[in-house]
Protein backbone atom coordinates (compact mmCIF):
# COMPACT_ATOMS: atom_id res chain seq x y z
CA UNK A 1 0.00 0.00 0.00
CA UNK A 2 1.42 3.35 -0.97
CA UNK A 3 1.72 6.17 1.49
CA UNK A 4 -1.02 8.23 -0.07
CA UNK A 5 -3.32 5.32 0.14
CA UNK A 6 -2.43 4.64 3.71
CA UNK A 7 -3.34 8.15 4.66
CA UNK A 8 -6.46 8.19 2.64
CA UNK A 9 -8.70 6.77 5.19
CA UNK A 10 -11.19 9.52 5.17
CA UNK A 11 -13.57 10.20 2.47
CA UNK A 12 -12.84 7.20 0.49
CA UNK A 13 -14.64 5.48 3.20
CA UNK A 14 -17.46 7.75 2.76
CA UNK A 15 -18.49 6.30 -0.41
CA UNK A 16 -17.11 3.28 0.63
CA UNK A 17 -18.88 3.45 3.78
CA UNK A 18 -21.43 2.11 1.68
CA UNK A 19 -19.21 -0.44 0.25
CA UNK A 20 -17.63 -1.62 3.38
CA UNK A 21 -20.26 -3.61 5.04
CA UNK A 22 -20.38 -5.79 2.13
CA UNK A 23 -17.60 -7.92 3.19
CA UNK A 24 -19.06 -11.21 3.61
CA UNK A 25 -17.59 -14.37 2.64
CA UNK A 26 -17.74 -17.85 3.02
CA UNK A 27 -14.31 -18.49 1.74
CA UNK A 28 -11.06 -19.59 3.21
CA UNK A 29 -8.72 -16.79 4.09
CA UNK A 30 -6.07 -18.46 1.98
CA UNK A 31 -7.94 -17.14 -0.98
CA UNK A 32 -7.16 -13.64 0.12
CA UNK A 33 -3.85 -14.10 -1.57
CA UNK A 34 -5.36 -14.80 -4.92
CA UNK A 35 -5.29 -12.19 -7.58
CA UNK A 36 -8.21 -10.95 -9.55
CA UNK A 37 -10.01 -7.79 -10.35
CA UNK A 38 -11.14 -5.32 -7.81
CA UNK A 39 -14.78 -5.93 -7.73
CA UNK A 40 -16.65 -3.03 -6.29
CA UNK A 41 -19.43 -1.64 -8.37
CA UNK A 42 -21.64 1.33 -7.69
CA UNK A 43 -24.72 1.62 -9.85
CA UNK A 44 -27.18 4.43 -10.02
CA UNK A 45 -30.44 2.66 -10.60
CA UNK A 46 -31.87 4.08 -13.76
CA UNK A 47 -35.57 3.70 -13.63
CA UNK A 48 -36.67 4.58 -10.16
CA UNK A 49 -38.79 7.63 -9.57
CA UNK A 50 -36.78 9.63 -7.12
CA UNK A 51 -37.55 12.61 -5.05
CA UNK A 52 -34.79 14.87 -6.34
CA UNK A 53 -35.11 17.57 -3.71
CA UNK A 54 -31.74 18.07 -2.04
CA UNK A 55 -32.88 17.09 1.41
CA UNK A 56 -34.93 14.08 0.39
CA UNK A 57 -33.87 10.82 2.03
CA UNK A 58 -31.45 8.76 0.00
CA UNK A 59 -31.51 4.98 0.09
CA UNK A 60 -28.53 2.88 -0.90
CA UNK A 61 -28.47 -0.90 -1.10
CA UNK A 62 -25.18 -2.43 -0.03
CA UNK A 63 -24.58 -5.94 -1.18
CA UNK A 64 -21.61 -8.15 -0.44
CA UNK A 65 -21.23 -11.16 -2.63
CA UNK A 66 -19.34 -14.37 -2.28
CA UNK A 67 -17.87 -14.05 -5.73
CA UNK A 68 -14.23 -14.93 -5.99
CA UNK A 69 -11.80 -15.64 -8.79
CA UNK A 70 -12.84 -18.67 -10.76
CA UNK A 71 -16.24 -18.93 -9.17
CA UNK A 72 -19.25 -17.28 -10.69
CA UNK A 73 -22.85 -17.13 -9.62
CA UNK A 74 -22.24 -14.61 -6.91
CA UNK A 75 -24.83 -14.59 -4.15
CA UNK A 76 -25.37 -11.73 -1.78
CA UNK A 77 -24.15 -12.79 1.59
CA UNK A 78 -24.45 -9.34 3.08
CA UNK A 79 -27.48 -7.28 2.39
CA UNK A 80 -28.08 -3.87 3.87
CA UNK A 81 -30.07 -0.81 2.98
CA UNK A 82 -28.54 2.45 4.12
CA UNK A 83 -31.00 5.27 4.52
CA UNK A 84 -29.71 8.82 4.92
CA UNK A 85 -31.85 11.77 5.83
CA UNK A 86 -29.78 14.83 4.84
CA UNK A 87 -32.17 17.29 6.45
CA UNK A 88 -31.92 15.64 9.84
CA UNK A 89 -28.30 14.54 9.52
CA UNK A 90 -29.39 11.10 10.60
CA UNK A 91 -29.54 7.69 9.08
CA UNK A 92 -30.25 4.03 9.53
CA UNK A 93 -28.53 0.90 8.36
CA UNK A 94 -31.24 -1.67 7.86
CA UNK A 95 -29.68 -5.11 8.07
CA UNK A 96 -31.47 -7.86 6.19
CA UNK A 97 -30.26 -11.39 6.92
CA UNK A 98 -29.07 -13.04 3.75
CA UNK A 99 -31.45 -15.98 4.04
CA UNK A 100 -34.52 -13.81 4.22
CA UNK A 101 -37.13 -15.05 1.79
CA UNK A 102 -38.83 -12.38 -0.26
CA UNK A 103 -40.95 -12.01 -3.35
CA UNK A 104 -38.49 -11.18 -6.10
CA UNK A 105 -40.16 -9.26 -8.93
CA UNK A 106 -40.36 -11.51 -11.96
CA UNK A 107 -38.69 -14.42 -10.23
CA UNK A 108 -41.04 -15.56 -7.52
CA UNK A 109 -40.26 -16.33 -3.91
CA UNK A 110 -36.64 -16.89 -3.04
CA UNK A 111 -33.87 -15.78 -0.72
CA UNK A 112 -32.91 -12.15 -1.02
CA UNK A 113 -29.32 -13.17 -1.58
CA UNK A 114 -30.17 -14.44 -5.05
CA UNK A 115 -31.28 -11.09 -6.42
CA UNK A 116 -27.89 -9.84 -7.49
CA UNK A 117 -27.19 -13.10 -9.28
CA UNK A 118 -30.45 -13.13 -11.15
CA UNK A 119 -30.80 -9.51 -12.09
CA UNK A 120 -27.92 -7.40 -10.85
CA UNK A 121 -28.33 -3.98 -9.32
CA UNK A 122 -31.68 -3.30 -10.92
CA UNK A 123 -33.27 -6.40 -9.46
CA UNK A 124 -31.74 -5.65 -6.09
CA UNK A 125 -33.40 -2.25 -6.18
CA UNK A 126 -36.69 -3.64 -7.42
CA UNK A 127 -36.71 -6.27 -4.71
CA UNK A 128 -35.95 -3.78 -1.96
CA UNK A 129 -38.69 -1.54 -3.25
CA UNK A 130 -41.19 -4.40 -3.15
CA UNK A 131 -40.03 -5.77 0.20
CA UNK A 132 -39.11 -2.71 2.25
CA UNK A 133 -40.97 0.02 0.40
CA UNK A 134 -38.12 2.38 -0.37
CA UNK A 135 -36.76 3.61 -3.69
CA UNK A 136 -33.14 2.62 -3.80
CA UNK A 137 -31.15 5.13 -5.78
CA UNK A 138 -27.75 3.46 -5.62
CA UNK A 139 -26.64 -0.12 -5.36
CA UNK A 140 -23.15 -0.91 -4.15
CA UNK A 141 -21.91 -4.42 -4.79
CA UNK A 142 -18.57 -5.67 -3.62
CA UNK A 143 -17.03 -9.06 -3.52
CA UNK A 144 -14.61 -10.29 -1.01
CA UNK A 145 -11.52 -9.12 -2.77
CA UNK A 146 -12.85 -5.67 -3.40
CA UNK A 147 -13.76 -5.40 0.24
CA UNK A 148 -10.31 -6.38 1.47
CA UNK A 149 -8.53 -4.12 -0.97
CA UNK A 150 -10.68 -1.17 -0.08
CA UNK A 151 -10.13 -1.57 3.64
CA UNK A 152 -6.41 -1.83 3.07
CA UNK A 153 -6.44 1.14 0.73
CA UNK A 154 -7.81 3.34 3.44
CA UNK A 155 -5.34 2.13 6.03
CA UNK A 156 -7.65 -0.22 7.87
CA UNK A 157 -10.57 0.45 10.11
CA UNK A 158 -10.85 0.59 13.89
CA UNK A 159 -13.78 -1.37 15.25
CA UNK A 160 -15.08 -1.51 18.80
CA UNK A 161 -15.58 -5.25 19.05
CA UNK A 162 -18.58 -5.81 21.32
CA UNK A 163 -18.11 -9.46 22.31
CA UNK A 164 -15.40 -12.10 22.07
CA UNK A 165 -15.34 -13.43 18.53
CA UNK A 166 -13.25 -16.51 17.91
CA UNK A 167 -14.22 -18.38 14.79
CA UNK A 168 -11.97 -20.79 12.97
CA UNK A 169 -14.17 -20.86 9.92
CA UNK A 170 -13.92 -17.16 9.25
CA UNK A 171 -10.57 -16.58 10.91
CA UNK A 172 -12.05 -14.02 13.27
CA UNK A 173 -10.07 -13.86 16.49
CA UNK A 174 -10.98 -10.80 18.49
CA UNK A 175 -11.34 -9.93 22.12
CA UNK A 176 -13.76 -7.17 23.06
CA UNK A 177 -12.47 -3.63 22.69
CA UNK A 178 -11.06 -1.40 20.03
CA UNK A 179 -9.28 -3.34 17.32
CA UNK A 180 -7.64 -1.76 14.29
CA UNK A 181 -8.29 -4.20 11.48
CA UNK A 182 -6.73 -4.60 8.10
CA UNK A 183 -8.81 -5.81 5.20
CA UNK A 184 -8.45 -9.49 5.98
CA UNK A 185 -9.36 -9.02 9.61
CA UNK A 186 -12.35 -6.90 8.76
CA UNK A 187 -13.44 -9.57 6.35
CA UNK A 188 -13.19 -12.23 9.03
CA UNK A 189 -15.39 -10.14 11.30
CA UNK A 190 -17.91 -9.67 8.53
CA UNK A 191 -18.00 -13.40 7.93
CA UNK A 192 -18.08 -14.73 11.48
CA UNK A 193 -21.36 -16.52 12.04
CA UNK A 194 -20.82 -19.86 13.70
CA UNK A 195 -19.93 -18.67 17.21
CA UNK A 196 -23.34 -17.11 17.61
CA UNK A 197 -26.60 -18.83 18.37
CA UNK A 198 -28.45 -16.52 16.04
CA UNK A 199 -25.55 -16.50 13.63
CA UNK A 200 -27.00 -14.77 10.61
CA UNK A 201 -28.57 -12.00 12.65
CA UNK A 202 -25.39 -11.33 14.61
CA UNK A 203 -23.29 -11.43 11.50
CA UNK A 204 -25.37 -8.89 9.69
CA UNK A 205 -25.23 -6.63 12.76
CA UNK A 206 -21.44 -6.92 12.78
CA UNK A 207 -21.33 -5.94 9.15
CA UNK A 208 -23.26 -2.81 10.02
CA UNK A 209 -20.81 -2.23 12.85
CA UNK A 210 -18.04 -2.19 10.28
CA UNK A 211 -19.92 0.40 8.27
CA UNK A 212 -20.42 2.62 11.25
CA UNK A 213 -16.80 2.23 12.30
CA UNK A 214 -15.71 3.32 8.84
CA UNK A 215 -18.01 6.29 8.97
CA UNK A 216 -16.73 7.26 12.41
CA UNK A 217 -13.15 7.04 11.21
CA UNK A 218 -13.92 9.19 8.22
CA UNK A 219 -15.73 11.76 10.30
CA UNK A 220 -12.80 12.01 12.68
CA UNK A 221 -10.61 13.14 9.82
CA UNK A 222 -13.13 15.71 8.68
CA UNK A 223 -12.06 15.87 5.06
CA UNK A 224 -12.77 19.10 3.24
CA UNK A 225 -13.76 19.41 -0.40
CA UNK A 226 -10.20 19.32 -1.73
CA UNK A 227 -9.33 16.25 0.31
CA UNK A 228 -12.53 14.65 -0.87
CA UNK A 229 -11.31 14.91 -4.46
CA UNK A 230 -8.07 13.18 -3.57
CA UNK A 231 -9.85 10.34 -1.88
CA UNK A 232 -12.29 10.05 -4.74
CA UNK A 233 -9.40 9.48 -7.10
CA UNK A 234 -8.25 6.62 -4.92
CA UNK A 235 -11.73 5.21 -4.69
CA UNK A 236 -12.21 5.36 -8.42
CA UNK A 237 -9.17 3.20 -8.95
CA UNK A 238 -11.00 0.45 -7.08
CA UNK A 239 -14.55 0.99 -8.13
CA UNK A 240 -16.48 0.48 -11.31
CA UNK A 241 -19.42 2.81 -11.68
CA UNK A 242 -22.56 2.43 -13.75
CA UNK A 243 -24.85 5.27 -14.69
CA UNK A 244 -23.09 7.33 -12.07
CA UNK A 245 -21.15 10.51 -12.61
CA UNK A 246 -18.38 12.16 -10.71
CA UNK A 247 -20.83 14.66 -9.29
CA UNK A 248 -22.96 11.86 -7.90
CA UNK A 249 -19.95 10.35 -6.21
CA UNK A 250 -18.83 13.68 -4.83
CA UNK A 251 -22.32 14.31 -3.53
CA UNK A 252 -22.42 10.93 -1.86
CA UNK A 253 -19.06 11.52 -0.27
CA UNK A 254 -20.04 14.90 1.07
CA UNK A 255 -23.34 13.51 2.25
CA UNK A 256 -21.49 11.00 4.35
CA UNK A 257 -19.31 13.70 5.87
CA UNK A 258 -22.42 15.40 7.17
CA UNK A 259 -23.62 12.31 8.92
CA UNK A 260 -22.83 12.06 12.60
CA UNK A 261 -22.12 8.38 13.23
CA UNK A 262 -23.82 8.76 16.57
CA UNK A 263 -26.94 9.62 14.63
CA UNK A 264 -26.81 6.53 12.46
CA UNK A 265 -28.49 3.52 13.96
CA UNK A 266 -28.11 -0.09 13.01
CA UNK A 267 -31.39 -1.92 12.86
CA UNK A 268 -31.69 -5.57 12.01
CA UNK A 269 -34.90 -6.67 10.39
CA UNK A 270 -37.08 -8.39 12.97
CA UNK A 271 -37.25 -11.96 11.78
CA UNK A 272 -37.24 -15.60 12.71
CA UNK A 273 -35.67 -18.69 11.26
CA UNK A 274 -37.94 -21.15 9.56
CA UNK A 275 -37.85 -24.08 7.17
CA UNK A 276 -39.16 -23.53 3.67
CA UNK A 277 -38.82 -25.90 0.78
CA UNK A 278 -36.37 -27.94 2.78
CA UNK A 279 -34.07 -24.99 3.31
CA UNK A 280 -33.36 -22.93 6.39
CA UNK A 281 -34.64 -19.44 5.80
CA UNK A 282 -35.42 -16.24 7.64
CA UNK A 283 -38.86 -14.73 7.53
CA UNK A 284 -39.78 -11.27 8.75
CA UNK A 285 -41.88 -11.18 11.87
CA UNK A 286 -44.84 -8.89 12.40
CA UNK A 287 -42.60 -6.20 13.89
CA UNK A 288 -40.81 -5.86 10.56
CA UNK A 289 -43.75 -4.03 9.02
CA UNK A 290 -43.43 -1.15 11.48
CA UNK A 291 -39.68 -0.97 10.96
CA UNK A 292 -40.07 -0.84 7.20
CA UNK A 293 -42.77 1.82 7.41
CA UNK A 294 -40.62 4.00 9.64
CA UNK A 295 -37.63 3.51 7.41
CA UNK A 296 -39.52 4.36 4.25
CA UNK A 297 -41.02 7.45 5.82
CA UNK A 298 -37.83 9.38 6.53
CA UNK A 299 -34.96 6.88 6.73
CA UNK A 300 -35.20 6.92 10.50
CA UNK A 301 -36.38 3.93 12.48
CA UNK A 302 -37.81 4.78 15.88
CA UNK A 303 -37.57 8.20 17.47
Amino acid sequence: MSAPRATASATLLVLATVTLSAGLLSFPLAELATGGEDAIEITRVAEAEYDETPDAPVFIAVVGTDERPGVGGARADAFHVLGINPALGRGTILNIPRDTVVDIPGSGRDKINTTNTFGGAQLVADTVRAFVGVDVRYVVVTNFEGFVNLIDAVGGVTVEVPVPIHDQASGADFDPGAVHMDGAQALSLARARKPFANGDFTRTAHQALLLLSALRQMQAQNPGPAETLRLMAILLTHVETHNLGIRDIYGLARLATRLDPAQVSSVTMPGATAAEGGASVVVPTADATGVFTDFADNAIVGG
Partner: protein
Amino acid sequence: MARAARALACCPALSSRLAALFHKLRAADPRILVGAAAAVVAAGVGLAFLAGGVLGLRGPGTTTTAPRALQVVVTERVVHSPGGQFGELPADVENGVVSTIAGYVRAASIDAVRPPEDGEDQAAAPPGPEDFFTPAAGARLAGTDADALTDAALPEAKAVSADRAAVTLTALATGSGVELVTATLDLRLRAVLDDDEVIVERRGDLVLVPTEAGWRIAGYHVTVTRTLASEATTTTADAAFDGVGP
Protein backbone atom coordinates in the same frame (compact mmCIF):
# COMPACT_ATOMS: atom_id res chain seq x y z
CA MET B 1 -32.33 52.79 10.63
CA ALA B 2 -33.93 50.18 12.81
CA ARG B 3 -30.91 48.03 12.35
CA ALA B 4 -28.64 50.90 13.27
CA ALA B 5 -30.69 51.48 16.37
CA ARG B 6 -30.41 47.86 17.33
CA ALA B 7 -26.70 48.05 16.79
CA LEU B 8 -26.45 51.03 19.09
CA ALA B 9 -28.56 49.23 21.63
CA CYS B 10 -26.08 46.39 21.53
CA CYS B 11 -23.33 48.72 22.69
CA PRO B 12 -24.83 50.91 25.45
CA ALA B 13 -21.60 52.49 26.61
CA LEU B 14 -20.71 53.88 23.23
CA SER B 15 -24.30 54.76 22.54
CA SER B 16 -24.51 56.87 25.69
CA ARG B 17 -21.24 58.63 24.87
CA LEU B 18 -22.56 59.52 21.44
CA ALA B 19 -25.85 60.71 22.96
CA ALA B 20 -23.99 62.91 25.45
CA LEU B 21 -21.96 64.44 22.67
CA PHE B 22 -25.09 65.11 20.66
CA HIS B 23 -26.81 66.77 23.69
CA LYS B 24 -23.80 69.01 24.34
CA LEU B 25 -23.87 70.29 20.81
CA ARG B 26 -27.59 70.98 20.55
CA ALA B 27 -27.21 74.68 21.38
CA ALA B 28 -24.21 75.12 19.22
CA ASP B 29 -23.79 76.07 15.61
CA PRO B 30 -26.33 74.13 13.49
CA ARG B 31 -23.56 73.11 11.15
CA ILE B 32 -21.79 71.46 14.06
CA LEU B 33 -25.05 69.86 15.01
CA VAL B 34 -25.40 68.43 11.57
CA GLY B 35 -21.86 67.17 11.80
CA ALA B 36 -22.54 65.52 15.12
CA ALA B 37 -25.67 63.91 13.80
CA ALA B 38 -23.71 62.61 10.90
CA ALA B 39 -21.16 61.22 13.32
CA VAL B 40 -23.87 59.44 15.24
CA VAL B 41 -25.25 57.98 12.06
CA ALA B 42 -21.80 56.94 10.95
CA ALA B 43 -21.18 55.29 14.30
CA GLY B 44 -24.52 53.55 14.00
CA VAL B 45 -23.57 52.26 10.62
CA GLY B 46 -20.32 50.94 11.96
CA LEU B 47 -21.99 49.34 14.91
CA ALA B 48 -24.66 47.82 12.76
CA PHE B 49 -21.95 46.29 10.72
CA LEU B 50 -20.31 44.96 13.84
CA ALA B 51 -23.56 43.56 15.04
CA GLY B 52 -24.02 41.36 12.06
CA GLY B 53 -23.56 43.33 8.99
CA VAL B 54 -26.94 43.34 7.33
CA LEU B 55 -27.49 47.01 6.83
CA GLY B 56 -29.17 48.67 3.96
CA LEU B 57 -27.68 52.12 4.48
CA ARG B 58 -25.46 53.79 1.95
CA GLY B 59 -23.29 56.80 2.54
CA PRO B 60 -22.94 59.71 0.14
CA GLY B 61 -21.45 58.90 -3.22
CA THR B 62 -17.72 59.38 -3.36
CA THR B 63 -14.89 58.59 -5.66
CA THR B 64 -14.27 54.91 -5.78
CA THR B 65 -11.05 53.20 -6.57
CA ALA B 66 -12.34 49.71 -6.95
CA PRO B 67 -10.00 47.16 -8.51
CA ARG B 68 -12.05 46.43 -11.60
CA ALA B 69 -9.44 44.03 -12.91
CA LEU B 70 -9.00 41.90 -9.85
CA GLN B 71 -5.98 39.66 -10.03
CA VAL B 72 -6.50 36.23 -8.51
CA VAL B 73 -3.20 34.46 -7.98
CA VAL B 74 -3.03 30.69 -8.25
CA THR B 75 -0.56 29.54 -5.63
CA GLU B 76 -0.75 25.82 -6.24
CA ARG B 77 -2.32 23.40 -8.68
CA VAL B 78 -3.04 19.77 -7.84
CA VAL B 79 -4.70 17.27 -10.12
CA HIS B 80 -6.01 13.97 -8.80
CA SER B 81 -7.11 11.23 -11.10
CA PRO B 82 -7.71 7.52 -10.82
CA GLY B 83 -4.35 5.95 -11.36
CA GLY B 84 -2.72 9.37 -11.20
CA GLN B 85 -2.22 9.52 -14.93
CA PHE B 86 -3.83 12.78 -15.93
CA GLY B 87 -0.94 15.20 -15.74
CA GLU B 88 -1.09 18.94 -15.20
CA LEU B 89 -4.10 21.16 -14.90
CA PRO B 90 -5.02 22.31 -18.41
CA ALA B 91 -4.62 26.05 -18.96
CA ASP B 92 -8.16 26.48 -20.23
CA VAL B 93 -9.53 24.93 -17.06
CA GLU B 94 -7.38 27.11 -14.86
CA ASN B 95 -8.29 30.22 -16.80
CA GLY B 96 -11.97 29.41 -16.69
CA VAL B 97 -11.97 28.71 -12.98
CA VAL B 98 -9.93 31.77 -12.11
CA SER B 99 -12.11 33.96 -14.28
CA THR B 100 -15.20 32.76 -12.46
CA ILE B 101 -13.67 33.28 -9.05
CA ALA B 102 -12.46 36.75 -9.96
CA GLY B 103 -15.89 37.60 -11.28
CA TYR B 104 -17.53 36.36 -8.12
CA VAL B 105 -15.19 38.30 -5.85
CA ARG B 106 -15.62 41.43 -7.89
CA ALA B 107 -19.41 41.14 -7.85
CA ALA B 108 -19.78 40.05 -4.25
CA SER B 109 -17.23 42.22 -2.52
CA ILE B 110 -16.33 45.12 -4.76
CA ASP B 111 -19.23 46.08 -6.99
CA ALA B 112 -21.55 45.35 -4.09
CA VAL B 113 -20.10 48.10 -1.88
CA ARG B 114 -18.93 50.74 -4.31
CA PRO B 115 -21.03 53.58 -5.67
CA PRO B 116 -21.44 53.95 -9.41
CA GLU B 117 -18.42 55.42 -11.11
CA ASP B 118 -18.70 58.66 -13.04
CA GLY B 119 -20.05 57.95 -16.47
CA GLU B 120 -20.87 54.36 -15.64
CA ASP B 121 -23.80 53.09 -17.65
CA GLN B 122 -26.46 52.48 -15.07
CA ALA B 123 -28.53 50.49 -17.52
CA ALA B 124 -25.73 48.00 -18.03
CA ALA B 125 -25.64 46.48 -14.60
CA PRO B 126 -22.52 44.45 -13.89
CA PRO B 127 -22.96 40.74 -13.26
CA GLY B 128 -24.25 39.87 -9.82
CA PRO B 129 -22.58 37.23 -7.67
CA GLU B 130 -25.33 34.76 -8.52
CA ASP B 131 -24.17 34.82 -12.13
CA PHE B 132 -21.08 32.90 -11.09
CA PHE B 133 -22.96 30.16 -9.26
CA THR B 134 -25.05 27.24 -10.42
CA PRO B 135 -28.74 27.96 -10.02
CA ALA B 136 -29.06 25.81 -6.90
CA ALA B 137 -26.12 27.45 -5.18
CA GLY B 138 -26.95 30.92 -6.45
CA ALA B 139 -30.39 30.72 -4.96
CA ARG B 140 -28.81 30.54 -1.53
CA LEU B 141 -27.20 33.94 -2.00
CA ALA B 142 -30.54 35.48 -1.22
CA GLY B 143 -30.90 33.43 1.94
CA THR B 144 -29.03 32.67 5.09
CA ASP B 145 -25.71 32.21 3.32
CA ALA B 146 -25.65 35.72 1.91
CA ASP B 147 -23.68 37.21 4.77
CA ALA B 148 -20.88 34.70 4.38
CA LEU B 149 -20.76 34.83 0.60
CA THR B 150 -21.14 38.53 -0.17
CA ASP B 151 -20.32 41.88 1.38
CA ALA B 152 -23.40 43.60 0.03
CA ALA B 153 -24.51 44.46 3.55
CA LEU B 154 -21.48 46.62 4.22
CA PRO B 155 -21.91 50.37 4.13
CA GLU B 156 -20.90 51.95 0.85
CA ALA B 157 -17.15 52.25 0.59
CA LYS B 158 -15.09 55.05 -0.87
CA ALA B 159 -12.48 52.60 -2.01
CA VAL B 160 -11.99 48.87 -2.09
CA SER B 161 -8.68 47.18 -2.60
CA ALA B 162 -7.50 43.60 -2.53
CA ASP B 163 -4.55 42.97 -0.24
CA ARG B 164 -4.58 39.33 -1.17
CA ALA B 165 -6.60 37.22 -3.59
CA ALA B 166 -5.13 33.77 -3.90
CA VAL B 167 -6.43 30.29 -4.59
CA THR B 168 -5.09 26.78 -4.48
CA LEU B 169 -6.74 24.71 -7.17
CA THR B 170 -7.40 21.02 -6.67
CA ALA B 171 -8.92 19.16 -9.59
CA LEU B 172 -10.37 15.73 -10.12
CA ALA B 173 -9.85 14.46 -13.63
CA THR B 174 -11.03 11.33 -15.36
CA GLY B 175 -10.84 10.10 -18.91
CA SER B 176 -13.46 12.72 -19.69
CA GLY B 177 -11.23 15.54 -18.52
CA VAL B 178 -11.41 17.72 -15.43
CA GLU B 179 -14.81 17.22 -13.85
CA LEU B 180 -14.56 18.99 -10.52
CA VAL B 181 -12.32 21.70 -9.13
CA THR B 182 -12.05 22.98 -5.62
CA ALA B 183 -10.56 26.41 -5.11
CA THR B 184 -9.22 27.00 -1.64
CA LEU B 185 -9.72 30.71 -1.29
CA ASP B 186 -7.56 33.16 0.63
CA LEU B 187 -8.99 36.62 0.16
CA ARG B 188 -8.23 39.84 2.04
CA LEU B 189 -10.01 43.00 1.04
CA ARG B 190 -9.81 46.47 2.48
CA ALA B 191 -12.89 48.70 2.24
CA VAL B 192 -12.42 52.36 3.11
CA LEU B 193 -15.55 53.85 4.64
CA ASP B 194 -16.22 57.48 5.36
CA ASP B 195 -14.55 57.35 8.72
CA ASP B 196 -13.21 53.91 9.13
CA GLU B 197 -11.82 50.92 7.37
CA VAL B 198 -13.06 47.36 7.20
CA ILE B 199 -10.84 44.39 6.57
CA VAL B 200 -12.68 41.48 5.00
CA GLU B 201 -10.99 38.11 5.08
CA ARG B 202 -12.80 35.31 3.32
CA ARG B 203 -11.37 31.82 3.41
CA GLY B 204 -12.56 28.37 2.54
CA ASP B 205 -13.34 26.17 -0.40
CA LEU B 206 -15.36 26.84 -3.50
CA VAL B 207 -16.43 23.82 -5.51
CA LEU B 208 -16.68 24.47 -9.23
CA VAL B 209 -18.21 22.41 -11.99
CA PRO B 210 -18.12 22.87 -15.75
CA THR B 211 -21.37 24.04 -17.27
CA GLU B 212 -22.40 25.20 -20.70
CA ALA B 213 -21.83 28.76 -19.51
CA GLY B 214 -18.37 27.98 -18.18
CA TRP B 215 -17.14 27.04 -14.74
CA ARG B 216 -19.64 27.79 -12.03
CA ILE B 217 -19.56 27.62 -8.24
CA ALA B 218 -21.76 24.74 -7.19
CA GLY B 219 -20.76 24.42 -3.56
CA TYR B 220 -18.86 26.24 -0.89
CA HIS B 221 -17.45 26.00 2.61
CA VAL B 222 -16.61 29.58 3.43
CA THR B 223 -15.84 31.61 6.51
CA VAL B 224 -15.66 35.39 6.44
CA THR B 225 -14.16 37.62 9.07
CA ARG B 226 -14.79 41.36 9.03
CA THR B 227 -12.77 43.63 11.23
CA LEU B 228 -13.51 47.30 11.77
CA ALA B 229 -10.15 48.99 12.12
CA SER B 230 -11.10 51.64 14.67
CA GLU B 231 -12.73 49.23 17.04
CA ALA B 232 -10.57 46.15 16.48
CA THR B 233 -13.84 44.30 16.54
CA THR B 234 -14.50 41.26 14.44
CA THR B 235 -17.58 39.53 13.17
CA THR B 236 -17.60 36.17 11.47
CA ALA B 237 -20.02 34.25 9.34
CA ASP B 238 -19.74 30.91 7.68
CA ALA B 239 -21.74 28.87 5.28
CA ALA B 240 -21.50 25.48 3.67
CA PHE B 241 -23.34 23.92 0.79
CA ASP B 242 -22.13 20.88 -1.08
CA GLY B 243 -24.43 21.49 -3.96
CA VAL B 244 -23.11 18.71 -6.14
CA GLY B 245 -24.43 15.26 -6.44
CA PRO B 246 -27.52 13.25 -5.89
